[in-house]
């Protein structure tokens, strides 16, 4: 598989704080990659480093096989980026923004732009400053996809949009880009969006890529166990893959990654009266996982290469 995005030990500090920590991220061609993490986890900084907006302190990154520090204009033509908050020149009309952006590209699908503007009922004469957040997102989308990019990088594109606009935005995005086998990397806080569109997810926790696996695999791997005891529940619990535990008197709640026979045996050794295994949706799994004990969180990935990559991070 060709890696459209590839980073190797990418690191960035702001002052004494390490915001991205030895990141090894690989996104394959045709993938829709959901890039998740809580506020300040390092998602936006990573995206800015990928686009050359922020210089890494160490490590390297490649987009479409070229180092990001030396991306040729011809390669940049194949990459689209929608920045967080949809920054646009407010004094422009939509038509002026289209004309301005078009001037940078040799390939420009005017028909597609018209279709998108029509679909969202946007007039070319509307001033950008008068648009709602949702409409700005729609204009950003039209401008991003018009050059027919091979890679689309979106930094929290649905932030601040209402549910209906968000759904419409994402569905349009998927229809326009993914059906043509293009690659999308997008960061988001809205797990429902990610669950709907992403083939694979990466979760950043304090600058470290803790999870890099198919979306379904993550959801299925994180389980909540509710153990009921006849007497007081044990205070200390030790179990492989344990993310978090709560002692609720006669009950003990455990969040585990990769619940299997080993873990089951470890849990049964606590001699609970009853064990209830609760399946979590992506949002619940994400919340339980990311509010765990941060640096001690179990890392997991499915492929060898990813396991190796994450091993590097653990070592760092």
């Amino acid at each position: 598989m060709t890696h459209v995005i590839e980073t190797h030990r990418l690191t960035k500090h702001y002052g004494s704080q390490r915001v991205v920590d030895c990141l090894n991220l690989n996104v394959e061609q045709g993938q829709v990659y959901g890039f998740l993490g809580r506020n300040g986890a390092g998602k936006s900084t990573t995206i800015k480093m990928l686009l050359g907006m922020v210089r890494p302190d160490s490590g390297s990154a490649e987009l479409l096989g070229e180092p990001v520090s030396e991306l040729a204009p011809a390669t940049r033509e194949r990459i689209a980026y929608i920045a967080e908050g949809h920054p646009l020149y407010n004094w422009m009309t939509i038509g002026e923004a289209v004309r301005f952006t078009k001037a940078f590209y040799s390939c420009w699908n005017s028909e597609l732009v018209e279709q998108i503007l029509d679909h969202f009922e946007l007039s070319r004469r509307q001033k950008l400053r008068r648009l709602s957040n949702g409409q700005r997102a729609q204009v950003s989308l039209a401008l991003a996809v018009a050059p027919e990019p091979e890679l689309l990088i979106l930094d929290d594109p649905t932030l601040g949009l209402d549910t209906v606009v968000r759904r419409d935005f994402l569905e349009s995005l998927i229809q326009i880009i993914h059906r043509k086998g293009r690659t999308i990397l997008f960061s988001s806080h809205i797990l429902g969006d990610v669950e709907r569109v992403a083939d694979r997810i990466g979760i950043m926790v304090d600058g470290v890529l803790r999870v890099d696996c198919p979306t379904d695999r993550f959801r299925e791997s994180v389980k909540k166990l509710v153990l009921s005891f006849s007497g007081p529940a044990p205070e200390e619990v030790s179990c492989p893959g344990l993310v978090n535990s709560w002692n609720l008197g006669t009950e003990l709640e455990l969040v585990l990654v990769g619940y299997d026979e080993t873990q089951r045996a470890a849990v049964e050794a606590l001699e609970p009266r009853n064990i209830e295994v609760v399946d979590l949706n992506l949002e619940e799994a994400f919340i339980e996982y990311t509010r765990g004990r941060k640096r001690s969180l179990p890392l997991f990935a499915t492929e060898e290469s990813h396991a190796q990559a994450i091993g590097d991070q653990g070592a760092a």
Partner: protein
Amino acid sequence: MLKQLAIKELRESLGLLALATLCAIGIIGPLMGKAVLPWGGSSKAWYPFVNDMHLSSQAMAFGAFALVLGLKQTAYESHQGTFRFLLHRPLARNKFFVVKMLVGTTAVLAVNAFMIGIYGWWSASAGNHASPYFWSMTIPSWKLSGNLVLVYLGGFLSGVRPAKWIGTRLVPAVFSIVCAILVYACPWWWASLTVWLVTATALLTAIFYYVQTSDQ
């Protein structure tokens, strides 16, 4: 694409340009004996381009314009987040800033030329004042215009250089103003030119360095 970029820069500078043009009219109007503002005075007592009255006004008004324009083209765009819309486009990053600086420098020189041109034309026209006039008398004004380009570059560098507003943000602007004064005060043309060239080179080198290395 460079044309579209230049149009965009010009369009974004129009407000400031209009203000500077009004300032130019406000400066030369009274010197030509025409009260621009109802409460403003006018006098034809000045010998055109002989005393420093117009020079100090030119330096203050267009110096401020040059500084604010340089800051607006950089710090304001960074503050608005529009660099994130612009700088990932398929064009070498230096070129975005070269276009900005060309438009900015042209704007600074244009408002100065407008003022000097109108005042010079009025001075050269017969019957407007009772004193000798030669176009060479405009040289100090042109020299000042060239110096204001340094102030513009200082403002531009202040905007692209990572620094705190309550801190060292305006150090390049102050540096450029000091150098501009030095250039103007220097009695020998070759010394003025040398200081101008060294300052401009230093400012441009720093601008291109920060453009390439600073985070957006």
